[in-house]
């Protein structure tokens, strides 16, 4: 049975189910419960995360398993690495992905590499949930989309869901995956609703989803930008252009096959990625196709990304920062060679 849930509720439900299923699953992070050791506070009044995403979990699982941490990302993210390697299955929340600056070592040099450096004699079943994305007027240090950094690092898996249903199924996969997974949640998607199956289900990490079928053009879009792609696709239909929209859902591993198969059919590729453009997921997908899909390409590969600048605070500037359906149409016009598309 499905119900309409917000992205945030879907993520919450996944954590609840994971914690019910396996007592080794614990949750830790800043204010994931909230109000630790405050006598008068009832658990149902506790924050449950800065955005309320973990609300209710402390009530159900107690403070032994839903653990508030000090503002010490290197400390608790690092601790979650060995907690995982010694028998727990932690979900560690890094409130904003921008805070990776305080704990990159623990993620890049410890979590990602332990297994390899130890010759396969360790596993790190750790999930790091983290918020990303622009559009929240949260300025340069709270608006980045840093999944490219993590995708660059072997040993990590990187998941960027775009819908509540995907978020739930992918998070359940992540938690029960035996490798470290970085799970990205776009803060501007939290209130977006969608149909979500109840009960426990999982969506394999590494499997893209074709969010819309089409024949004339492939659009690969990441996270929230899947919705930009779908809007652009709707607009293009009016011009008789059918775009296929692919949501890779995970960047590492990347479902190369689904992308290459689509481009083999459509012969055109646009990638939408709101992150900054250099050494990005956009260039990664583009380069994949420029190599393995080259013979099927009829046009330059266009990337619609954020610009090479920090995310500005001012709403007027931030709105310019993000990809839009109009920018997609502009790119389509260029590769189809039909300027009238822009006016759709």
């Amino acid at each position, binding site marked *: 049975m499905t119900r309409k849930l917000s992205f945030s509720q879907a993520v919450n439900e996944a954590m609840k189910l994971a914690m019910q299923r396996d007592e080794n699953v614990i949750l830790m992070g*800043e*204010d994931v419960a*909230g*109000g*630790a*050791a*405050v006598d*008068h*506070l009832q658990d149902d*009044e*506790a*924050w449950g995360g*800065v955005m309320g995403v973990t609300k209710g979990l402390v009530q159900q699982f107690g403070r032994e398993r839903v653990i*508030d*941490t*000090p*503002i*010490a*990302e*290197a*400390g608790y993210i690092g601790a979650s690495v060995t907690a995982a390697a010694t028998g727990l299955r932690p979900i560690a929340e890094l409130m904003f992905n*921008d*805070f990776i*600056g*305080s704990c990159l070592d623990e993620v890049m040099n410890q979590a990602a590499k332990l297994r390899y450096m130890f010759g396969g004699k360790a596993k790190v079943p750790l999930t790091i949930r983290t918020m990303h994305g622009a559009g*929240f*007027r*949260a*300025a*340069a*240090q*709270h608006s980045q989309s840093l999944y490219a950094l993590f995708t660059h690092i072997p040993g990590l898996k990187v998941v960027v869901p775009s819908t509540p249903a995907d978020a739930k199924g992918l998070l359940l996969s992540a938690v029960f995956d035996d490798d470290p997974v970085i799970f990205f949640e776009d803060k501007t998607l939290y209130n977006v609703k969608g149909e979500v199956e109840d009960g426990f289900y999982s969506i394999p990490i590494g499997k893209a989803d074709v969010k819309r079928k089409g024949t004339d053009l492939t659009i690969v879009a990441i996270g929230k930008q899947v919705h930009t792609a779908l809007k652009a696709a709707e607009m293009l239909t009016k011009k008789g252009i059918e775009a296929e929209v692919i949501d890779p859902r995970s960047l590492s591993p990347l479902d190369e096959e689904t992308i290459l198969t689509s481009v083999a059919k459509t012969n055109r590729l646009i990638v939408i990625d709101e992150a900054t453009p250099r050494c990005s997921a956009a260039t990664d997908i583009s380069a994949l196709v420029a190599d393995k899909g080259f013979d099927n390409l009829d046009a330059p590969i266009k990337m619609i990304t954020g*610009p*090479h*600048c*920090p995310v*500005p*605070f*001012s*709403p*007027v*500037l931030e709105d*310019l*920062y993000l990809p839009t359906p109009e920018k997609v149409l502009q790119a389509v016009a260029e590769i189809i060679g039909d300027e009238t598309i822009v006016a759709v």
Partner: protein
Amino acid sequence: MTVVRSELKSLTREKAKWMYEKMCEIRRFEDKVHDIFSKGVLPGFVHLYAGEEAVAVGICAHLNGKDYITSTHRGHGHCIAKGCDLDGMMAEIYGKATGLCKGKGGSMHIADVEKGMLGANGIVGGGFPLAVGAALTAKIKKSGAVAVCFFGDGANNHGTFHEGINLAAIWNLPVIFVAENNGFAEATPFTYASSCTNISDRAAAYNIPGVAVDGKDAIAVFEAAEHAIERARNGRGPTLIECKTFRNYGHFEGDAQTYKSSQEKEKHLNDLDAISRFKEHILSMRLLSERELNDIEEKVEAAVENAVEFAEKSPYPDEKELLTDVYVTYQ
């Protein structure tokens, strides 16, 4: 009530006036931002400093234009105490082109490097190394400047606290580390997150002086700062000052503050209020008259109204601003 410290010669009439004015500016500014925010006009996250005025003001009362401060996500109070322009601040919070950062930084990144205000900071603990760097310049260039690092009780558990203070200590730099211990980091109590009893106790780990003061008593802060800053200026190195304080509003706008008890809130908003206490104090010391204080209050009221008007009337940044200021020469 605070005991009158008659020996406090440095608290001159002018100083007292300045302090009262700045404390009122901060309070009025923050109350105003709170109101406007609740109307849904302001974008983004806003963390208000109201309630903690005595800290920023008691410290900055000893600073001059060449001195530096580093601030936090809760930075409006530090900005005002360091002399930032109210109009430019308010415009910044609105995201307007006339903002101190042309609207590009917002509440969490207000800065005025010319005035030695090295920026609010969205990263908790971000300020420690930055204060050290400014003090290093001061030492190498023998400018006589000091650097003040304001930080919260939450930041005191971040690794940069340790690295920053240790650096300042071994290099004997003119830094004053000012803990604003308001008891909470978001919804997490200091007593849960910190293994120390007082943040100032941690100074011993670096062989530097550590003092704890009532951070809602502007004069106590002023006094502690005086010693520490003099020490730093005389080349005798860093000090850690812990100011026990309380924020009047939630962590950010929209926080229901269920983690605070109502008695606690009550007490701090009334009896312990920093501004009333300072006022009583300077009146009882006969430093300033009731009349003078009223004048200040009115002036401040007008200045803040003005700032809002200025901000509201200001234009948003031009589209091209998206791509400027990334590099000295944008490439």
